[in-house]
């Protein structure tokens, strides 16, 4: 793994990026695995914060469709929760980082998209090590 020295602004450990030109099948499998972890983390985060009725309503409205598309998910969250979206995104990133063993810094500004990219790369690196 290539460790990058950076003053990242997102609240996670900086694991740097791994080259993308590796086995596409393995990459696809890792992305699928990541997507599954992410969707279950989002479900837990929303369920734990706002209860299962709210989760079911939001699921029926399509909140979790394509949840691994961070831009799309962020847009949907903003349209429902406004400023509260950032709170839910922090809960998601914190849980996701805990599951993947990525350090989380609650003091740093959250960059949701970048945080998910880092988590995805960690997932990919782990799949290569297995």
């Amino acid at each position, binding site marked *: 793994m290539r460790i990058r020295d950076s003053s990242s602004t997102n609240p996670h450990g900086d694991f740097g990026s791994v080259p993308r030109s590796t086995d596409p099948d393995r990459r696809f499998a890792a992305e699928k695995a990541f997507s599954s972890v992410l969707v279950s983390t989002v479900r837990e*985060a929303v369920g*734990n*914060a*706002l*209860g299962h*009725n*709210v989760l079911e*309503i*939001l699921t029926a*409205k*399509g*909140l979790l469709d394509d949840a691994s598309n961070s831009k*799309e998910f962020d*847009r*949907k969250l903003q*349209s*429902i*929760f*406004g*400023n*509260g979206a*950032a*709170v*839910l995104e*922090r*809960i998601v990133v914190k849980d996701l980082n805990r599951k993947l063993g990525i350090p989380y810094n*609650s003091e740093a500004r959250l960059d949701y998209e970048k945080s998910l990219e880092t988590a995805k790369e960690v997932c990919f690196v782990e799949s290569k090590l297995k």
Partner: protein
Amino acid sequence: MSGSEVLSTLLGSEIRGDLLVLFHKNPGLIDTADGVARRIGRATVTVISDLRELLQLGILKQKRIGNSDVVFLDRAKDRDLLESVANHLKTVRISGEK
């Protein structure tokens, strides 16, 4: 208070989000402000105003045990408030929703 206002109060800050998750994951939890702050990895002084907001909303209750003031989840109120949030969200349109 409308479902929309309840939602804004519940998700009013990151700490409030952490407190909600803590009490929903541990609905029987009874602890002091110090203990609650420690459980979410914060200093007591940073959680006091958010605890106050949740106490004012009624989702948390406070009582005195011995020499300590403790807070705990009011499960019935929690259910009512989350139901009002759910009813509000039924009427909200997600952008791009068919």
